[in-house]
């Protein structure tokens, strides 16, 4: 394919996009503080930073979603004041959102049409959609409704929609967070092709290996300010991490004496139909977790992890009592509260609205799970001092930072709230802990605290089951890893022997016997909708 943007080549070293001292304040709080950024055509520019560092705020300004309160943006040498995303799109700026901006109950074609300016007929748009998706090897069925599609396919819609605008600048927000390693590889092929076509790509990530491999330049943000712009290939992952975090991150260590002894949690042939018609069927899930062990469940989002968590926590009851055994008790028919009284504890993925009631105080959120097993309720009456004491203890033990003793859950930062939720459960010394995405969207410091706490808990003889999309996290803390795909769970492999590629193939739906690198192409061909060659 010829260069669609004649006149722009890498030799023209005037920046395509320039941010000059750009900033955004909410009240007195600066989410971005005089940030400078030069972005050139034909480069992939990484925007690195921890959660809350201000990456999203910056790209939202570049995409016209929010207005800067200081500084200015220049695009192709001219000052640019955007009236909204449509304005940005008309100038050639496209964006692929992390939490997709898709409409579940509309078709793929309708979703794409909504992302374009509507200057062509629906039929013309549909045929162009077919052409672009064929050109870039991103196959899509335009008549399917979005809720029927996998996460990878949904991202494909976003990317095709962006490409159909023929953008000069493409912004991608954490695009690989929801992909298998193989799907990520496919994405990189597309991105490299876009670079060679002379487009600029702003690539938001916190995965440093990926950035080193793909990106030409990296700008690092910390606490709303720019720390540095560097060449990621000249840096080490550790040096970039130091710039992101502002300090060295300690390695987590497994405690001593982690003997795997008794079987504390077992799931036996668990099959379930979802309540939600958009949900995933669980198929014959079988696994056991011993005391002193951390079992990881990997998988791309939307493959039944939520359904499995709900079945384990008791938010949905299993078909048979014996489907779930907690410390020797058949628990499949027990309620959440009864399971907690058996010594189980649960940490859901969603912090606000699931793990906590956002607009309630921390003491009330301590009561949320504590009422079952702790001594916070006497004859139906709530012991308020006891709930407050529990908050204080969690705060101390897990270093939860907050500006008053008992604030609303929603006022805490993601990392601090997650430390509170994990701490709330761990301080009850559960025999079985089931935790979903323990460090999703959490800063590095908090993530280290949480992972260490999980390791320590298992070191004290508890069984810990971690559901995570983050393979690095699982290989760091888990003893064994199983992979979830389309509601079925693979047999676990020892984490020490698990390699990324094998796990990635399992995440993409390869059967365990075939999950070896040699069969990769073959699998890709069979599972056309999940691992597609470019």
């Amino acid at each position, binding site marked *: 394919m010829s260069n669609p943007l004649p006149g722009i080549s890498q030799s023209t070293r*005037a*920046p395509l996009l*320039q941010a000059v001292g750009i900033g955004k304040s909410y009240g007195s709080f600066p989410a971005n503080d005089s940030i400078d950024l030069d972005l050139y055509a034909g480069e992939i520019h990484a925007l690195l930073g921890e959660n809350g560092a201000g990456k999203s705020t910056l790209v939202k300004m570049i995409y016209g979603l929010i*207005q800067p309160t200081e500084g200015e943006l*220049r695009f192709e*040498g*001219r*000052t*640019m*004041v*955007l*009236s909204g995303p449509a*304005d940005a799109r008309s*100038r050639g700026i496209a964006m692929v959102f992390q939490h997709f901006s898709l409409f579940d109950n509309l078709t793929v074609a309708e979703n794409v049409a909504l992302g374009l300016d509507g200057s062509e007929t629906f039929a013309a748009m549909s045929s162009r959609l077919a052409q672009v998706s064929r050109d870039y090897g991103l196959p899509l069925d335009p008549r399917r409704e979005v809720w029927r599609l996998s996460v990878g396919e949904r991202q494909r819609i976003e990317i095709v929609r962006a490409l159909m605008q023929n953008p000069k600048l493409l912004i991608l927000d954490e695009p690989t967070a929801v992909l298998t390693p193989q799907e990520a590889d496919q994405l990189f092929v597309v991105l490299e092709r876009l670079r060679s076509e002379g487009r600029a790509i702003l690539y938001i990530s916190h995965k440093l290996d990926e950035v080193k491999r793909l990106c030409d330049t990296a700008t690092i943000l910390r606490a709303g300010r720019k720390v540095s712009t560097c060449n990621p290939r000249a840096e080490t992952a550790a040096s970039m991490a130091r710039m992101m975090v502002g300090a060295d991150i300690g390695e987590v260590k497994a405690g001593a004496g982690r003997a795997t002894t008794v079987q504390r949690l077992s799931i036996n042939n668990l099959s379930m139909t979802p309540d939600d018609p958009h949900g995933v069927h669980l198929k014959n899930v079988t696994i056991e977790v011993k005391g002193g062990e951390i079992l990881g469940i990997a998988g791309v989002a939307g493959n039944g992890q939520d359904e499995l968590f709900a079945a384990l*926590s*008791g*938010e949905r009851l299993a078909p048979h009592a014996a489907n779930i055994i907690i410390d020797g008790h058949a628990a499949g028919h027990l*309620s*959440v*509260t009864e399971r*907690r009284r058996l010594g189980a504890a*649960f940490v*859901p993925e*969603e912090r606000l*609205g*699931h*793990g*906590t*009631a*956002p*607009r*309630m105080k921390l003491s*009330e959120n301590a*009561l*949320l*799970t504590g*009422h*079952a097993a702790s001594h916070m*309720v006497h004859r*139906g*009456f*709530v012991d308020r001092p006891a709930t407050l004491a529990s908050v204080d203890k969690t705060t101390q033990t897990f270093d939860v930072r907050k500006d008053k003793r008992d*604030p*609303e859950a*929603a*006022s805490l930062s993601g990392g601090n709230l997650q430390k509170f939720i994990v701490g709330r459960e761990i301080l009850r010394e559960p025999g079985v802990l089931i935790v979903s995405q323990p460090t999703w969207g959490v800063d590095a410091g908090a993530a280290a605290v949480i992972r260490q706490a999980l390791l320590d808990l298992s070191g004290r003889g508890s069984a810990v089951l971690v559901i995570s999309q983050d393979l690095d996290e699982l290989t760091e803390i888990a003893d064994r890893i199983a992979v979830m795909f389309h509601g079925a769970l693979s047999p676990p492999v020892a984490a020490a022997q698990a390699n990324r590629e094998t796990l990635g193939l399992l995440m993409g739906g390869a059967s365990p016997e075939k999950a070896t690198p040699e069969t990769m192409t073959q699998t890709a061909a069979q599972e056309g909708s999940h691992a597609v060659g470019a």
Partner: protein
Amino acid sequence: MQLVLEKRTERSVLIAVASPLVAIVLTLVTMSILVAILGKNPITALNVYFIEPLTDPYTLGEIIVKATPLVMIAIGLSLCYLANVWNIGAEGQFIMGAVCGSYLAVVTNGTDAGPWVLPAMLVMGTLGGIIWALIPALCRVRFGANEILTSLMLVYVADLVMDYLVRGPWRDPKGMNFPTTASFDPVATIPTLFDGSRVHAGSIIALIVVILATVMLGRTIKGFEIRVVGAAPRAARFAGFRSDRLVLFTFAISGGLAGLAGIIEVAGPVGVLQPGISPGYGFTAIIVAFLGRLNPVGILIAGLFLALTFIGGEGAQISMKIPLDLTKVFQGILLFYVLACDSMILHRIRLIATPKKAVQGTVDGTA
């Protein structure tokens, strides 16, 4: 420049306290304008509406009489609304409570039945309200039918049930064909508390309800359950609270309280069962619940205030010829302002600059 709404990171305690007061002041201002448009003197009207009823012991008593059903119904509704359960059919539950309780009064009428009649009537009335409220609750829990619409539809049905009874089987044979039952016997009547006033023992029941609700909401795990289910349903499920059971529970409590209020009203101040026993208590109680910020003590105050508007409205109709509908308008506007002011607890309004379109892409950068 444009006005925009922004979320606050933490609820504003100051505004939470001030909000009902600000709402009342705004309502009074709006009402004064409306009264002026009707060609009356707003100052006189405000005096007749809000001051005069407070200066006379009889009307003070009437305020308490009117506030009694409002407070009882609103307490029940507040539990529903806190749990995000939308019972708006309290008017029907009130009527069915009155009907079921009146059954005993009608069948024992003129007999020498003992003092058991009144307590039994109160129990029957409560049960009547509970059963009527459980219909929409069960329709929602079992079939997923929207409780807002079903509970409201049953108001019309309850009204027609009462209409049928007082025009048919229960009509007072000596009543000159008026649609009404015979006057209740003394054993079927709630005693008044003071001579020369209609204030009755039912008001004491309302006060007890306020105290019990305060304790339940503030101190017990059940109260916590109600608040969590309403505020964060998924977190409530995670906590092990069953929302379908809570729908039944809150509907039963609010229906029971409305039914109890209904039978107290007919066995107390009204003394017979007849159409028009309620000037829309079941709907006005919705306003009371919100004006009281879904808090039992707040509801007590709000109930007294709205009772004052009923009494003041009657006074204004007599002395100033202001239509009685103005009271309903007043109540509607008040609810409007209450909701608007409450929003300021969680949000703030800010003035922001809109991007200047003129600059867009026309000024050359210096790069």
